[in-house]
């Protein structure tokens, strides 16, 4: 039954895709986020669903889509360079087989992020992509939200519908992503054209945002709490009634904190006393190891280079800590627990540099669009600044969450990056920046100088 449901849904998408090929692109987005083949028991798990949708998406674009005015943007070039560099480090990796296993999914995420902006040719397509991303993620978030409400969740024990802790189904990753998409959910509710804002949309939006906020509670991922704090500050930027908003946040906190599970509040206290917490102290030890490693290997060790680390961690007692007094712990093959150190250790200074340029350029471009369209009076442009703000806010939340989670190549985030590039390219195409009119007008009969330049005089 489960399997037939997924097969029926995917077939429906394929049929619609033959009418409008952009649906193939959305089909790939859905498959990549939800992984129906991994939720399936016998029908889909042997079929390369992801590959089929990728071929259909690229084929549909090549055959039927309008490609006029299509340009390769700066960030797509950076993505291509990052892809090439990752390929090179994989060929020279410290652990060739382990590196190949990660390369197998990283290259797909990067290639799709390079391709996706070409297909985002209309406002509706950008909206459709964001809706598909949010609704696909909601299949995991709603499960987590309801289970947290019912049972309170627990670190590593919240089952999100799939047990293998990969992709978005991992606790810390879904905690960061769930908070990062809140600004986009709010944008879609306010400015979406596919579902006009009525009571049903308001109710679903409120319920989904609430479920997103519950994910870090249910997974007890400390990163999620930090992301919620960042999101609360970012959402205030364009708020008209800031005092009312702050009062609302304060009231929500006062109501929510006593209702939080005891295990959650205990774990959140360890954010302050990290010296006494083995998990947090190990991270710092891994980061120190990575820094020392790249001094001798400036080009990085390829994917999964962390497998070679051997760590000795000294723990000191702190109030609320999980370790006894002056304990020493040993660990090995500890993951980076930070996207920044993941990039540095695996791809070296060059890889980290490319990755940083990609993300910083995204933030800067969204800021430029925000400022350009913030005070627009044209009704057809009113959605642009809020979308740039929402994408930028999600991006900042991701970059903060990525300080503590190794999500440098998380495909969902690359789709968000591709949506930013798509919005930027779309606006360059349909709303190019008009050159300012000269302040001093030239008369047609103005005299020319020796170089043939007309001398303009203020009249």
């Amino acid at each position, binding site marked *: 039954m489960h399997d037939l449901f997924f097969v029926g849904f995917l077939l429906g998408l394929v049929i619609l895709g033959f009418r409008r090929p952009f649906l193939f692109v959305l089909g790939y987005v859905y498959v990549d986020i939800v992984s129906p083949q991994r939720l399936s028991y016998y029908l889909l798990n042997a079929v390369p669903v992801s590959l089929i949708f990728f071929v259909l998406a690229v084929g549909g674009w090549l055959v039927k889509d309008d490609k006029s005015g299509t340009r390769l943007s700066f960030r797509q070039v950076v993505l291509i360079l990052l892809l090439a560099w990752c390929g090179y480090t994989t060929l020279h990796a410290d652990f060739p087989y382990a590196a190949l296993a990660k390369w197998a999914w990283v290259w797909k995420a990067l290639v799709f992020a390079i391709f996706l902006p070409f297909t985002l040719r209309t406002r509706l397509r950008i909206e459709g992509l964001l809706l598909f991303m949010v609704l696909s993620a909601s299949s995991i978030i*709603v499960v987590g939200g309801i289970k947290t409400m019912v049972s309170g969740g627990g670190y590593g024990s919240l089952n999100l519908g799939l047990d293998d802790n990969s992709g978005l189904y991992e606790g810390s990753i879904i905690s960061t992503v769930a908070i990062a998409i809140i600004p986009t959910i709010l944008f879609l509710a306010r400015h979406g054209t596919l579902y006009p804002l009525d009571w049903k949309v308001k109710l679903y939006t409120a319920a989904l945002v609430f479920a997103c906020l519950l994910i870090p509670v249910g997974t007890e991922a400390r990163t999620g709490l930090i992301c919620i704090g960042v999101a609360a500050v970012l959402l205030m930027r364009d708020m008209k009634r800031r005092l009312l908003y702050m009062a609302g946040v304060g009231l929500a906190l006062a109501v929510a904190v006593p209702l939080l599970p005891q295990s959650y509040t205990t774990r959140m206290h360890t954010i302050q006393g990290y010296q006494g917490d083995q998990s947090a102290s190990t991270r710092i030890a891994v980061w120190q190891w990575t820094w020392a490693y790249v001094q001798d290997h400036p080009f990085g060790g390829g994917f999964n280079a962390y497998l070679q680390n051997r760590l000795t961690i000294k723990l000191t007692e702190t109030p609320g800590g999980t370790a006894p007094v002056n304990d020493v712990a040993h660990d090995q093959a500890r993951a980076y627990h930070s996207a920044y150190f993941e990039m540095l250790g695996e791809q070296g200074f060059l890889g980290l540099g490319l990755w940083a340029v990609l993300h910083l350029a995204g933030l800067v471009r969204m800021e430029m669009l925000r400022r350009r369209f913030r005070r627009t009076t044209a009704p057809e442009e009113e959605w642009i600044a809020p979308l740039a703000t929402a994408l930028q806010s999600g991006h900042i939340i991701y970059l903060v969450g990525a300080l503590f989670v190794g999500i440098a190549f998380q495909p969902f985030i690359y789709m968000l990056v591709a949506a930013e590039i798509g919005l930027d390219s779309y606006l360059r195409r349909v709303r190019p920046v008009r050159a300012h009119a000269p302040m001093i007008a030239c008369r047609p009969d103005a005299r020319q100088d020796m170089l043939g330049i007309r001398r303009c005089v203020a009249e």
Partner: protein
Amino acid sequence: MIDNFALLLSHALLALTAWRLVRRPDLDRDAGVEQPRAWGRRRDA
């Protein structure tokens, strides 16, 4: 039970979204926006 409810809800909304997208003419071409000309194509073509 909870897993199935969430899957059903999200997939119903995804299906509705796909259906609404397919029916919109502005999915492939923005309404009222002049598209740039393809290379070599005349303005009045």
